[in-house]
C-alpha cells in the first residue's frame, strides 16, 4: 500500500469534537498530519463586541463546554480589570472552589474520553458517573450542569447553599477512593503501559518552543502552573503541589492529570474550610445594581439605563484544566467591550500536532490526541 491521505474527522470517534485531522500514512506509519480547524467557529469574539459584559459570561460557558467556570473566571478577571471593579474576598474563594471543581469535572471527562481512545470500555462509564457527582454539586449552587452563568463582574451571582460543604466533602472522599480504582484500571495494566509509554513525546525545550502549556508541559518536567507562579483568586492562600512528570509522553500526561485531580480535591477541602469560617458578601458594593442584572433590557436601542463605563483594558491569565488561557478585554466606554481576545491553550497544543504525531502509527493517534485533551469549542471559539 502506498502513501495516502486519510481524513480523521470531522465525524470520527477520535476527534472528541468537531475538527479534522488529515493524516498521511504509509501502511500504519504516520508521515504527515494537518489539523483542520474551524468547524465549530462560532465567532464568540465577535458576538462579545455586541453584548453586555454580564451577557458575555453566557458565551464563555460555551467557549469551553467542559470547563465553563474556568472560562467565566478568565473573562471575569479581565473584565473586572477593564471596568475597575474589585470583588469581595468570599467571591474569590468561591471562584477558586468552582474552578477546582471544574478542573475535577474536566479531568474526569478527559479520563472518560481518553480511556475510550485506548480501547478501555468500562472506565468511560466510571469517569462519567463520578463526573455527574461533581456536576450535581454545581447544579446545587449554579443551577446548571454544564453552562452555569454563575460569575458576575464584581463577584458571583449567589452564595453557596446551606449543606453544600458536607455534600462536597462527601464527594471529595468518594472521588479520592475512585482515583485509586482508576489508577488500578489504567496504569496498573501492562497493556496500558505498552500502549502509552514513549508515545507522543514532546520534550520540555520543544514544549516551550511550540508554546505548549498545561499538563502537556508539566508532563515534560516543567513545573509551570499559573496558580503557583502568578496566583489569582485565592490560590496564594491554599496549599497544593504542582504535579509534574518526567517522561513527557502519554503516560506522563495521564500521571500529571491524575495527580492534579488529587491536588484539586486538596484545594477544594481547604476552600470549603475557609468558606465555612468566613461568611460575607459575594458581590462588590460599588457595582451598580443593573450591572449584576442577568440580562439587559430588551431592544437594541431602548436601554433603560445608559451604560457607560470608564475606559480600561484588562488582561488575565488562568490555569485552565487544559493549560494556560489568556484573555484581553479592551473597554472603550459604552456598554460593550471593544474587543475580547481569548487565547486557548488547546489551540496552541493542537497547532503542534505535527510535532508529536509524525512517526507514530495510526493506532497511536487516538491515545496521543486523547492525552492532549482537546476541547474544540475553545480552539475555534
Amino acid at each position: 500500500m502506498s502513501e495516502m491521505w486519510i481524513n480523521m474527522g470531522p465525524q470520527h470517534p477520535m476527534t472528541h469534537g468537531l475538527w479534522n485531522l488529515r493524516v498521511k500514512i504509509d501502511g500504519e506509519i504516520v508521515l504527515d498530519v494537518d489539523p483542520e480547524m474551524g468547524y465549530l467557529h462560532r465567532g464568540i469574539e465577535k458576538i462579545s463586541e455586541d453584548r453586555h459584559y454580564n451577557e458575555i459570561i453566557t458565551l464563555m460557558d460555551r467557549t469551553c463546554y467542559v470547563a465553563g467556570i474556568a472560562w467565566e473566571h478568565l473573562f471575569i478577571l479581565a473584565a473586572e480589570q477593564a471596568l475597575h471593579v474589585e470583588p469581595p474576598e468570599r467571591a474569590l474563594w468561591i471562584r477558586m472552589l468552582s474552578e477546582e471543581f471544574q478542573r475535577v469535572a474536566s479531568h474526569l471527562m478527559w479520563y472518560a474520553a481518553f480511556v475510550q481512545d485506548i480501547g478501555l470500555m468500562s472506565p468511560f462509564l466510571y469517569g462519567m458517573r463520578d463526573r455527574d457527582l461533581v456536576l450535581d454539586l454545581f447544579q446545587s449552587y449554579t443551577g446548571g450542569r454544564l453552562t452555569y452563568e454563575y460569575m458576575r463582574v464584581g463577584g458571583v451571582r449567589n452564595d453557596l447553599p446551606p449543606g453544600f460543604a458536607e455534600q462536597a466533602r462527601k464527594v471529595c472522599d468518594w472521588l479520592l477512593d475512585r482515583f485509586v480504582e482508576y489508577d488500578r484500571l489504567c496504569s496498573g495494566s501492562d497493556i496500558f503501559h505498552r500502549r502509552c509509554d514513549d508515545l507522543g513525546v514532546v520534550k520540555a525545550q520543544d514544549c516551550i518552543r511550540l508554546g505548549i502549556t498545561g499538563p502537556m508541559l508539566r508532563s515534560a518536567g516543567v513545573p509551570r502552573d499559573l496558580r503557583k507562579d502568578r496566583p489569582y483568586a485565592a490560590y496564594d492562600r491554599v496549599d497544593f503541589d504542582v504535579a509534574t512528570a518526567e517522561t513527557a509522553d502519554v503516560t506522563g500526561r495521564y500521571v500529571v492529570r491524575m495527580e492534579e485531580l488529587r491536588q484539586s480535591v486538596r484545594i477544594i477541602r481547604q476552600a470549603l474550610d475557609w468558606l465555612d469560617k468566613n461568611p460575607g458578601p459575594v458581590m462588590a458594593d460599588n457595582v451598580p445594581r443593573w450591572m449584576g442584572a442577568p440580562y439587559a433590557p430588551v431592544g437594541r436601542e431602548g436601554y433603560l439605563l445608559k451604560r457607560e463605563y470608564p475606559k480600561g483594558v484588562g488582561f488575565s491569565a488562568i490555569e485552565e484544566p487544559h493549560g494556560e488561557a489568556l484573555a484581553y478585554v479592551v473597554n472603550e466606554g459604552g456598554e460593550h467591550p471593544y474587543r475580547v481576545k481569548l487565547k486557548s491553550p488547546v489551540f496552541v497544543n493542537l497547532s503542534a500536532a505535527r510535532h508529536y504525531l509524525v512517526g507514530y502509527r495510526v493506532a497511536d493517534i487516538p491515545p496521543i490526541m486523547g492525552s492532549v485533551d482537546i476541547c474544540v469549542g475553545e480552539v475555534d471559539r
Partner: protein
Amino acid sequence: MAPLSLYGVANTLVSTLLLHLAAVLPAPLSTLASNSGLITALSVLLFGAILLGASLLNTILLIWFERKMLGRFMDRRGAMHVGYAGLLQNFADGLKLFRKHTFKPRDADGLGFFSAPTAYMVTSIVMFGILPISTGWNSGSLPLSLLLALVVFSFAPLFIFLGAWSSANKYSLIGGMRSAAQMIAYEVPILLAVVAVILLSGSFDLSTIVAEQRNYWFWGPLFLALLVFVAGMLAEMERIPFDLPEAEAELVEGWNTEYGGMLFAFFMLADYARALVGSYLIVLLFLGGWTMPGWVPAPLTNFPLAGILWFQVKTYLVFGVFIWVRASLPRVRTDQLLRVGWMRMIPLALLSIVLAALVVLAKCLPVFGCVPSVGG
C-alpha cells in the same frame, strides 16, 4: 440410556409423518412417500432447520448476555425495556436492520460488497453443523471434525478482506488488512495448541476428544495450550483487547464501516456466531464438552438433554470470561499483537505440545490411573 439424537428426532418425525401420508395417499404417491431416500433427505433438511434455528437463537441470546453483562461491568443496566429484561432487544435490532434500505456505496464493487457478508455469515453458521454440542447432536460423527471445524473457521479473513476491499473505503481497507494479518497470525498458534489436544486425545474427532475427557478435563494438563488457544480465539473473534480491525477510536467501525442495514446485521450476527463457536471449541477441547466430572450427583447429569444444558452453561461461562476481559482491558496495537502472536504464542504452543507428549507418556504410568487411549 439411549442418548437422544437430533437426527433421530428429525428422522422419527419425518418418517412418522410420511408413513401417515402414505396411508392416505393413492398408490403411486404412497410408494414415493415411503421412499427411504426421501425420508432421509427430509430428515436432513429438518435437522438442518432445527439446528440453524436453535443456533441462531443461541447466538442472539449470547448478544443479549454480552450486553447485560457489559452493562453490569459498567455500572449500568443494559437493554431493559424491550421484552423481559431486554430479551427482545436484539430481535428488534435485527428486524429494524432487515427493514433498512440496502444500498451499495457508489464506488464499491457490487459483487464483493454483497457476497462478502453472505459468505462470512454462511461459513460462520456452517460451524454449528460441525460441532457436536452433545452426543448425537451434530450432523454425524465425522472422523476429522476438528480439522473441518478449524478449516471452516479460518475462512473468515478472506471474506472480511473481500468485504473491506470492495467497500472502497480507506478505513475499511486498513481494517481489513489488519484483520487478515491478525487472523492469519493467530491461526498458527491455535492450530499448534490444538495439536497438543490431539496428541493427548489421540483423535481428530470432537466426540472422541470429549469422550477422552471423561476422567479429567484437558485444561489441567494442557493449561498452556488453553492459554494460547484462548488468546488466539480472542484474536480470531476480534474482541478487545484484540479488536484492532474494528478499533473504534481510530478506524471508525473498521472493516464494516460502509456496511449498513441487513449486510451489517449479517456481519454482526456472524461475529457473534463466531464468538459462540469459539467458546464451543474451548469447551469441547479443554473443558470436557458436555460431560461432567464424576462427583456431580447423578440426578444433575442424568435427565434428558442434560448434556446440552451443561454444555451451554460452560459455553456461557467461557464467554463470560471473554466479556470480563473486554470490560477491563485496553486494546493493543497491531505490531504488538503480531509480535506477541509470532514470537510468544508460537513458542508457547510448541512448548505445550511437548508437555502434551509428556502427559501422554505419563498416562502409561499407573499413578494417573487413567486408561491409555492413544490410537483408540
